[in-house]
């Protein structure tokens, strides 16, 4: 082989060797960037979590210091108010820790439900009555729209009640005075039966039919379309609204519970018109 051809051949071999090396380096760089981004998201979540847990702990510690400094405080009206505040703060913390534990179990695939035969209508009426006082204190009405007064099914009553707790407390938080919350539920056998608030029948595909289609609608402020995809992400939650502390993980947990039942959870929202969160509860395991 002539020397120039040999040199050209050699250079070609080097280029061919460098191409996969360059690709691998590029891929590693992208992976490192993605990992760093994930670490930042995790760090942000951890920082928010620490902040949310610090607040009630600060109250408990501060109130304890005050009682230690003044032994007569416990008998005074202010002391009794402080004790009630401490109790409330410890409940807030316990609730946050329980939520985090649920999210951990859901993510680790260890979340368990215990299904028994029961009436979904009972659960709905029970939760509507439970939240009615809180809603009424804000001038909000809760009504129930179901045709069948039984709605028999096979589900984990405690966990499905928890789903309603999360959806109803969110609805109340985001609805102004004079607003309305409607809980609806009905059986659906085909996708043509799926008629949503803003989506015509048949356009939304439900897996696992037949099922109950449950909706919790409010006339609140609605959700910014740019933020809808974040709602079921734990890393975007942990927020506070007007002095109400909480994990903000309600929707994340509700999703885990519904999906453990083989159902789907989704929502529709329009700014200034309100939001409806839907979930399905399959009737056949």
């Amino acid at each position, binding site marked *: 082989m002539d020397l120039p051809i040999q040199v050209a051949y050699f250079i070609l071999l080097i280029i061919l060797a460098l191409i996969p090396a360059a690709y691998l380096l590029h891929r590693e760089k992208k992976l490192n960037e993605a990992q760093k981004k994930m670490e930042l998201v995790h760090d942000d979540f951890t920082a928010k979590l620490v*902040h949310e847990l610090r607040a009630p*702990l600060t109250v408990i510690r501060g109130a304890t210091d005050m009682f230690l400094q003044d032994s007569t405080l416990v008998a005074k009206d*202010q002391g009794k108010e402080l004790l009630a505040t401490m109790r409330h703060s410890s409940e807030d913390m316990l609730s946050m820790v329980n939520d985090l534990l649920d999210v951990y179990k859901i993510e680790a695939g260890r979340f368990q439900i215990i299904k028994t035969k029961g009436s979904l209508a009972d659960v709905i009426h029970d939760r509507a009555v439970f939240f009615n006082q809180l809603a009424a204190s804000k001038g909000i009405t809760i009504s129930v729209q179901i045709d069948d007064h039984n709605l028999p099914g096979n589900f984990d009553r405690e966990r499905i009640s928890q789903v309603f707790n999360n959806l109803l407390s969110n609805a109340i938080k985001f609805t102004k005075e004079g607003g309305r919350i409607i809980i609806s539920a009905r059986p659906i056998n085909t996708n043509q039966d799926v008629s949503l608030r803003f989506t015509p029948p048949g356009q939304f595909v439900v897996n696992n039919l037949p099922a109950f289609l449950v909706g919790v609608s409010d006339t609140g402020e609605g959700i910014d379309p740019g933020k809808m995809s974040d709602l079921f992400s734990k890393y975007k939650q942990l927020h506070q609204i007007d002095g109400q502390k909480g994990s903000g993980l309600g929707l994340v947990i509700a999703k885990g519970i519904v999906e453990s039942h083989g159902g789907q959870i989704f929502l529709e929202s329009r700014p200034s018109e309100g939001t409806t969160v839907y979930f399905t509860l399959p009737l056949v395991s």
Partner: protein
Amino acid sequence: MAKILLVDDDNALRELYAVELSSKHYTVIEAPDGEQGLAKVKAEKPDLVLLDIMMPKLDGVATLTRLKQDPETKSIPVVMLTNFGQENLVQQAFSSGATDYLLKYKVTPAEMAEKVGQVLTTPSP
């Protein structure tokens, strides 16, 4: 006795600090966010403002900046009272005119009240 405006969105913490400050015979006014805090400063003319950072509607640093930009309110001492201790936030608060910066999880209510007393008795520059 001096009038203290307590601006914090956490109802329980506001109650705790209000009880402590009242026991030291201060008059306490409260606001749950920065917007209402600004309105109360103008209406009540407090002697000192205790200001949280993470609040809805208007956060503490933005509230502080507006207080210090307004000739009517800029001389009122503002003590930041927060659970956020990041260095950049602390520096930002001081450069925006905060008189002091307290971390809620580090100070007891009594220490907070003592700091309030110190700030009120220290002549302003």
